[in-house]
């Protein structure tokens, strides 16, 4: 589907034919409140003698912030993609900036799983809509505004493509390959076995595919600028390992690399829009598989940097992979800050549900920046406690740490505290537990049911 920008035949507010405003008023006059209230995101297609005319509710003009505009765009697409309309012209009498935001919403919503997974397309998923023309008075300016948004939007699609990919397709080497194809990004692949990333190795050792630490570099600023480091959990499939998961819904675990996908997407976006900063992405890639070579509960492994970990539960593997990635990043990249993202715990879903991701941070300033970026992008976060009060849960009888506790309690907080041990105190650090947000169980305004690409827009904004 293409998105174009064009001038309307005349000023949007006072045009001859077709004159949306005048025509809309005429249509509105024939409708009553029950048919159309002009509330935000309301969409009403009407078949007239001239063809389809679509009424779009905007609500109060004063309340039309970027978030509202994106939702209007997203909903417009959702309502009309399969309505039999091929070309859609959208004239909402908005500024170029606002028009670009509506187009951004359309773009974000216009994603579906790549066709490669079906022989024949699903009838219900066919989009008739092939082109959306956004009408506004200064289309060039709108186009310019949209270019930057489009870079981010395409990166969100990329992240969703990665998350939706099945575990037999997006294997660790396939994930590495995909990361190598991001334009403007330099990829270095580190062998955990050789680099002393023994925790990452332990997570991946049961799989036929070797684990890897993928380092993605984007240089948009001078060499002396310390980079922001983004770390992502990239478990391409999580069986739970020897502590195997129940069969029901285990297929969802193909998405256990959502954090890594968000990091990859963020780098893609930053590179595409030539952001003037240095960023390093680090993705800890492994398949947590069951086999005769797999790690056992009770195994003790020395991580990168020297701390030893007793693996109590092989299904608390994300924190092991991340621990090595964090320690490696801290030691090798002189980070100005580190932000990690991971589909880490079920507990965070009990705590915050599906509306907000868990935010843990050692720096109030970084926490506030992330929180604000989340509000602005509708990728919402909520800060949760990170204090030593919880440390009893990760004390091991024989090693420096254990990876979790069997006691019923705040496993997401325990996981965050566990990770904190691998980040030096002097580096501002934040951890986002996105287990509840990486995929959506129902359709939303900017993403249909399925992968959301959560984190890409948030990271793009917070680093911008």
């Amino acid at each position, binding site marked *: 589907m293409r998105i174009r920008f064009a001038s309307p035949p005349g000023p949007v507010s006072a045009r001859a034919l077709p004159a949306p405003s005048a025509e809309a008023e005429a249509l509105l006059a024939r409708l009553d409140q029950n048919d159309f209230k002009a509330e935000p995101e309301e969409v009403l297609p009407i078949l007239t003698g001239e063809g389809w005319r679509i009424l779009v509710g905007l609500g109060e003009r004063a309340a039309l912030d970027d978030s509202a505009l994106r939702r209007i765009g997203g909903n417009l697409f959702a309502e009309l993609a399969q309505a039999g309309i091929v070309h859609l012209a959208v004239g909402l009498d908005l500024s170029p900036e606002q028009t670009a935001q509506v187009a951004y919403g359309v773009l974000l919503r216009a994603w579906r799983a790549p066709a490669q997974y079906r022989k024949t397309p699903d009838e219900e998923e066919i989009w008739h809509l092939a082109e959306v023309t956004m009408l506004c008075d200064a289309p060039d300016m709108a186009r310019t505004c949209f270019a930057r948004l489009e870079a981010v939007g395409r990166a969100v699609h990329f992240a969703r493509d990665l998350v939706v990919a099945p575990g037999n397709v997006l294997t660790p080497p396939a994930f590495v390959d995909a990361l190598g194809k991001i334009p403007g990004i330099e990829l270095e692949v580190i062998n955990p076995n050789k680099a002393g990333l023994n925790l990452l190795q332990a997570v991946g050792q049961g799989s036929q595919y070797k684990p890897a630490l993928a380092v993605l570099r984007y240089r948009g600023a001078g060499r002396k600028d310390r980079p922001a480091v983004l770390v992502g959990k990239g478990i391409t499939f999580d069986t739970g390992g020897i502590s195997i998961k129940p069969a029901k819904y285990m297929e969802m675990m193909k998405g256990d690399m959502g954090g890594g996908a968000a990091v990859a997407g963020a780098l893609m976006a930053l590179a595409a829009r030539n952001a003037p900063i240095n960023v390093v992405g680090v993705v800890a890639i492994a398949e947590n598989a069951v086999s005769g070579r797999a790690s056992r509960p009770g195994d003790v492994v020395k991580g990168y940097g020297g701390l030893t970990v007793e693996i109590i539960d092989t299904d608390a593997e994300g924190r092991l992979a991340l621990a090595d990635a964090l320690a490696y990043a801290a030691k090798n990249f002189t980070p100005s800050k580190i932000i990690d993202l991971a589909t880490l715990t079920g*507990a965070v*879903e*009990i*705590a*915050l*549900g599906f*509306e*907000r991701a868990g935010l843990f941070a050692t720096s109030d300033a970084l926490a506030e920046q992330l929180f604000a970026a989340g509000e602005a992008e509708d990728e919402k976060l909520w800060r949760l*406690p990170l204090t030593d009060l919880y440390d009893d849960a990760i004390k091991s009888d024989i090693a420096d740490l254990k990876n979790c506790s069997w006691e019923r309690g705040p496993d997401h907080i325990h996981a965050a505290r566990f990770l904190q041990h691998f980040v030096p105190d002097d580096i501002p650090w934040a951890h986002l537990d996105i287990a509840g947000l990486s995929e959506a169980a129902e359709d939303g305004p900017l993403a249909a049911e399925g992968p959301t690409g959560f984190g890409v827009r948030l990271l793009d904004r917070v680093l911008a």
Partner: protein
Amino acid sequence: MKISFAKPASAPEGALVVTVLEGRLLGATGQALDAESGGALARALAKSRFEGKKDQTLLLHAPAGLKLDRLLLVGIGKGKGFDAKAAQGLGGLVVAQLGGSGDAEVTLAIDLVEGSSLSAAEIAANAAFGAKLRSYRFDRYRTKEKAEDKPSLKKLVVSVADHGDAKKSYQPLEAVAEGVFLTRDLASEPANIIYPETLAEQCKALSEQGVEVEVLGEKQMKKLGMGALLGVGQGSERESQLVVMRWNGGAEGDAPLAFIGKGVTFDTGGISIKPAGGMEDMKWDMGGSAVVIGLMKALALRKAKVNVVGVVGLVENMPSGTAQRPGDVVTTMSGQTVEVINTDAEGRLVLADALWYTQDRFKPHFMIDLATLTGAIIIALGDQYAGLFSNDDKLADKLIAAGKDVGEGVWRLPVDDPYDKQIKSDIADMMNVGGREGGSITAAMFLKRFVNGVKWAHLDIAGVTWSKKDGPVTPKGATAFGVRLLDRLVADNYEK
């Protein structure tokens, strides 16, 4: 355990406790003893790992040159930052260390702590408070306990130069401790002893302290239309009660502060019955109401200059032929209807009517409710913080500040509209559960529907009401979490 204040003795006898700052720095009392013993203390310090770090202790038996039987050195860390909470911890530690030592009487010597913003008298008062709080014991059902298993410590003397000031500072703190003890007693009592009518009797006893108490029975509640609260209690033999407690210490006509407590005296879960393992803990599902009752006692005892109303909804949630069923629809006092999907999500039903009644009748300045409401909060925050939900940022900030001061931490969680969709019902205005995910938040969203524009905060205390471990001033068991927090909130912000 009795507590008294006295002048420091010139040649102390018996058991004595002195404080040591980090770096093995003895206080004035310690220095005097060291001199008298010919440097014995300094020698003992030098030969040990004891450095005076916070909560380190070193026990010396019959130190040479002194008349003492026992000398306990307690580390208090750095003087800077030695605040009221730290002083309370000191008192608690003394009781924990010497409560069963065999000594019937112990003297705690308080000196001025260099670097601390507290006076010696304030330190003494707070140490006494901490000692008192830590000395709590619920032993009324132990009929055959051996003497050596009982605490030996009967009297703690806090010696400090200006002991008169210390005693004066201690009085309001002692009132708070009395409130805490009442709350702990009520939460610890089994459900065959404390049920709605007997808990209401406990409330009535507060009239001795000047609290006006009014008890509404089922008939009156029915008249008021409290269908949600009554639905929860209808399976029980015991009559449900709603108790209103009023303390009028402020100016006449001032809008009262309102505290509302969930008082499910036993929660079997009802027809949606709970698993047997651990169900005995459900005797303290009235923990929120116990806090409100204890708080009323504390405020009355210390004659707080403020108008306060406490409202507790008391019910027993039992399965029986008359119990409410999953799927039942009840009409609340507000007129809103609720589809009861799970009879074990009963606390919010009780609170719904109690909240509405409170704002309707008293037009309070704010409403704060406390409830052992959800299992989800135990996953969300564990046992270190209570969940705080509020529609008012200022009130939330005040609660967070008060919590930090007294060591009863509250952590704010969202009450956002997006969560509201989880409690939509197919046939009624709302359901009483919204799924596992965000379970504490959806419970708060439910309560929010019964708050009509009033400033409101909800404390989900399910994770902090009962402790499996001893805390600095809280022995394991019922913690009375909330009494000190709310007393502080009132004292710091609302008393004239």
